[in-house]
């Protein structure tokens, strides 16, 4: 058996493919297989967590398109998710539209709102943009809570569970398939987006906006497009929450939500789809794991168990700080390190750039 020392593509099709290496294709196959058989073995507790992770992945990919790939910092994630969730709920409740259409329209509405709040990005960047989106977050949140005629105000909005193939998707098992399909679709679309002209333009703007405009990228247009694309998927995540929880309350979409999603993409890795998934999984699992540990301590150390919410909050902050200090490229870099190590194993030397 020959040792693999590199893959050399001899056609353009092979070189620009979505998955360029056999190993990548095998890994993806294994992952999809795992996703498909997982629900048949998992308890409803783990299915619930898997659904949360799937929804968070969609939202994190959406945010990553804007922050990680295009370099525009946004603290308005919670607001955009609120728009998606409320739009989906209201289309179903008030207009009686089928749930699929409601979700699609909710995504489009969120994209429009996101583009509107993206307009300041034409004049502002960096921290000024971050502060502008912070204002957007507070203003949307205020609109949601102070416009009871439309949103029900601080009251919860109850949304009926979606139906497909004659089954109500109100169990974790049934919803899992919808969530996994939407998350997979989002990942596939985004992976392809960054092989396209628009995606390359986003990355060019992130790396150097002046240089991008010199080589002919219309910076204004592509920034707005990035806001629209990003909010489209953020809205999708919001709509998924609406149909998964069947109840929409504004508390789910505060500044804290924006921060949690930013943490996901920081911890996972900015500008990678894999990182969005890893980050979404870690940030969703972390509080759940701490709760489990706390439960087991309930008997032996009740004083410690009482501090659980504080431990969760501190752990959340610590994870962000530690990743930023020790591995700013996040979990996706760690994953790459592992791959590189095994690439030429058992030899000690590594590939130069670590591949993709």
């Amino acid at each position: 058996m020959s040792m693999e020392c590199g893959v050399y593509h001899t056609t353009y099709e092979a070189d620009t493919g979505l998955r360029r290496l056999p190993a990548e294709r095998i890994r993806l196959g294994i992952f999809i297989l795992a996703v498909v058989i997982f629900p048949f073995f998992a308890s409803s507790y783990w299915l619930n967590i898997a659904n949360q992770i799937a929804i968070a992945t969609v939202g994190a990919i959406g945010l990553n398109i804007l922050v990680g790939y295009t370099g525009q910092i946004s603290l308005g994630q919670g607001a955009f998710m609120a728009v998606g969730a409320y739009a989906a709920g209201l289309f179903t409740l008030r207009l009686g539209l089928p749930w699929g259409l409601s979700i699609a329209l909710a995504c489009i509405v969120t994209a429009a709102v996101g583009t509107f709040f993206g307009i300041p990005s034409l004049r502002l960047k960096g921290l000024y943009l971050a502060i502008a989106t912070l204002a957007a977050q507070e203003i949307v949140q205020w609109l949601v809570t102070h416009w009871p005629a439309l949103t029900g105000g601080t009251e919860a909005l109850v949304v009926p569970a979606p139906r497909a193939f004659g089954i109500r998707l109100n169990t974790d098992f049934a919803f899992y398939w919808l969530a996994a399909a939407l998350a997979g679709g989002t990942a596939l679309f985004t992976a392809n987006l960054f092989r396209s002209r628009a995606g390359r333009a986003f990355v060019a703007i992130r790396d150097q906006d002046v240089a991008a405009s010199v080589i002919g990228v219309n910076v204004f247009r592509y920034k707005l497009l990035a806001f629209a694309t990003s909010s489209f998927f953020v809205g999708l995540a919001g709509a998924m929450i609406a149909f998964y929880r069947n109840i929409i309350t504004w508390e789910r979409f505060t500044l804290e939500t924006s921060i949690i999603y930013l943490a996901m993409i920081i911890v996972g890795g900015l500008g990678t789809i894999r990182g969005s998934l890893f980050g979404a999984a870690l940030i969703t699992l972390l509080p759940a794991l701490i709760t489990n540990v706390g439960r087991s301590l309930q008997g032996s150390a009740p004083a410690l168990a009482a501090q659980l919410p504080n431990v969760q909050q501190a752990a959340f902050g610590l994870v962000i700080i530690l990743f930023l200090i020790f591995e700013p490229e996040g979990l996706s870099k760690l994953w790459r390190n592992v791959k590189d190590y095994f690439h030429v194993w058992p030899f000690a030397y590594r590939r130069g750039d670590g591949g993709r």
Partner: protein
Amino acid sequence: MDAFLQLTVSGLSTGMIYALAAVGFVVIYKASDVINFAQGDLLLFGTYLIFFGIVQLGLPWTLGVLLTLVLAAGLGLLVERTVLRPLVGEPIISMIMVTIGLSSVLRALANALWGAQPRTFPSFLPSGEVRIGTAVVGADRLIAIPLALVLLGALALFFRRSRDGVAMRAIADDQLAALSMGISIPRVFAVAWALAAVTAAVGGMMLGSIVGVSQSVAVVGLRVFPVVILGGLDSIGGAVLGGAIIGLLEVYTGAYIGHGLNLIVPYILLIVVLMIRPYGLFGKEIIERV
């Protein structure tokens, strides 16, 4: 007219507390270009530390205030050394996120140490009411205004006259040139954080004395953004004026328009300022445009 006067005093006192929080923010931003999202939590620690000193340790209030200031400065130094120092020169998003993470840790710590339920401590500001003409105004609110102004004046003097203050301005002006003149940048960053923590602690003490000790004090941290954007990110005078304007705007909208609009009016103003004059009233006009 009485109501108007009452509102004005109340708005100005709130505004001065905003200004104290904002000045800390400005000092850090000026020295090290870090956007501190944990400013509200520094305020929170100020409130809890004075509670700790006066109620839990039973100190007289002069000693309590002194202890609070010393501990707050220590906290600022600790945070700078452990969290911010390793990230010098990282992109803006890292800076924003690390202070957000810090805010989460600090809040959890305050919660673990002092619990979530609201507390009170014997106010060290004079209580009772003062009559101005026919209007009745809380004495604690009235005294908070000159108190804050004196402190902010002292801070301005520090920047004009003291060695560290001048070094800080030099670094804000041109880091490389300052470095080549022998100014120690880590030292200046540390002083900046200690100063920010101390001014925030003073704001926190006043706030705790007026509205009581609770987690809600940290919310003031978010009000800092409209204030500093309005005043100019790198201007102390701007922070004072911005604080006063935002404080007044809030109480006036709350009283005359209502509908909870006072909660977002600062943010609406913020967006307007960002679109028209992003460097604020007194900021340096070197903002990077696209």
